[in-house]
């Protein structure tokens, strides 16, 4: 980068100050990373091994706790059925989290901009999280029917809160000196929001979405329990009275894997879109 500069054309140029050449080095998997993956695999194997032993030789009825190999068999044999229902639930979760993300981000900004709103609405938001979903799910089904609408509302309801909290915290952490600087640059309130606060809030949105994904999956299962004709939650609900416990467990496996995959995708997206959030905050000198 510096070699493109001519030697004598800039009287103000001085030597000795250069960008850190390592700043853009790609990260290769290091030994600790490899050890991390290996130990994750070992823990997983140990968990499944213990489960297998307990299910095979323990006192529990296989109708209550099927063995992992039964679950694996159900995963294979029911794969078409599971896939069909998975696409339904996955669609609900994805759409629900996107709706919650947009609504949560907008809500956090509104709360950030208005102290009065923060004082009056924020406690209500906290209270809304204490309402058991099982209580309002049938009500929502009665209002909105058996389609995707009540599921979206429930998933968005449970995912909304973590997104609001983390986004609002990220907004509150914006350096007050930076706000002051923008004021001496004559920026009106909304331009401060646009150029400083909105970008600064993005890492909060990602953190919130990562929390939201896990609860969104649970929310989807509850929503389908309350009234549905398809989806993995519906499958679990119908499998258990039919003594197909291993099928219910297979559905849970798929839901877990889905949540892990979404979490991983979000982590990747975070690195891609808000890489600065993982560096030390601005203002450091080298």
């Amino acid at each position, binding site marked *: 980068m510096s070699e*493109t500069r001519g030697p004598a054309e800039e009287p103000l140029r001085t030597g000795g100050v250069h960008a850190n050449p390592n700043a853009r080095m790609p990260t290769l998997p290091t030994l600790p990373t490899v050890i991390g993956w290996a130990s994750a695999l070992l823990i997983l194997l140990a968990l499944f091994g213990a489960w297998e032993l307990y299910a095979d030789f323990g006192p529990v009825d296989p109708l209550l706790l099927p063995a992992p190999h039964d679950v694996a068999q159900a995963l294979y044999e029911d794969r078409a059925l599971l896939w069909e229902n998975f696409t339904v639930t996955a669609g609900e979760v994805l759409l629900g989290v996107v709706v919650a993300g947009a609504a949560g981000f907008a809500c956090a900004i509104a709360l950030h901009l208005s102290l009065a709103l923060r004082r009056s609405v924020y406690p209500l938001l906290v209270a809304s999280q204490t309402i058991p979903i099982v209580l309002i799910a049938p009500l929502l089904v009665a209002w909105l029917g058996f389609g995707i609408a009540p599921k979206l509302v429930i998933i968005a309801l449970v995912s909304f809160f973590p997104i609001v909290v983390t986004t609002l915290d990220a907004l509150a952490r914006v350096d007050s000196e930076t706000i002051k*600087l923008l004021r*001496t640059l*004559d920026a009106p309130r909304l331009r401060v929001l646009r150029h400083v606060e909105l*970008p600064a809030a993005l890492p909060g949105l990602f953190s919130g979405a990562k929390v939201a994904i896990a609860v969104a999956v649970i929310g989807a299962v509850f929503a389908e329990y309350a009234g549905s004709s398809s989806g993995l939650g519906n499958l679990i609900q119908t499998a258990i009275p039919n003594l197909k416990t291993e099928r219910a467990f297979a559905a849970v496996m798929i839901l877990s894997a889905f949540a892990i995959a979404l979490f991983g995708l979000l982590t990747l997206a975070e690195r891609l879109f808000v890489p600065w959030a993982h560096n030390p905050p601005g203002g450091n000198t080298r």
Partner: protein
Amino acid sequence: MDGVRVDAVERVFRGRRGAEVVALRGMDLRAAPGEIVAVVGASGCGKSTLLELICGLQQPDAGSVTADPAVLMPQRDLLLPWASALDNAALALRARGVGAGAAREQARPLFERFGLRGFEDERPAALSGGMRQRVAFVRTLLAGKPVLALDEPFAALDALTRQEMQGWLGRALADEPRTVVLVTHDVEEAIVLGDRVVVMSPRPGRAVAELAVDLPRPRHRTDAAVVALRERAMDALGAVV
């Protein structure tokens, strides 16, 4: 254009439990248009408060402040980590509603002039402390205000980089003259850069001594005349501490 006039200013902060902290009392300061006034004083003497008054970020409790529009360059560079160096400098224009493309085009020539060419697209995290301060200074210039309020701009840098940046700032201001109020705790920096050095007392801060620096530029901290002036300024500071 009247530069900066600070007359008998008092500024009081109310701490918790109602204790009053008098940051400034009877503070006077003049900066003629185009003049570089360096203000030195111990930590906590109200220097930053003085600059915020000049920038209109605070109002005096007594006395008066009249100044041409002023822009603050804070001690920390406060570069936005997600924006490139060029966009960080252009923020001064974006803040006033200039479009992204036009703001970049206005900022680009200043990168050429101030030794930042080739660094336009770097993120702040990839820049050294000195380069970050240069970007912050270009941002300050792009605010297009006649008065620059510089708050210990090089305090966070290591000694070598600081010397280099002082030379750089001296040339930059020769190239792009403005009315400057430079606050620093570094007496040498004040003498190397200032047309005039104002010494402040500890809290409550006020101006207690003033030295004219009638020395040719560029000045170096090793020049005999600079060293002699430094002794006088240190004496003035020592007398009030």
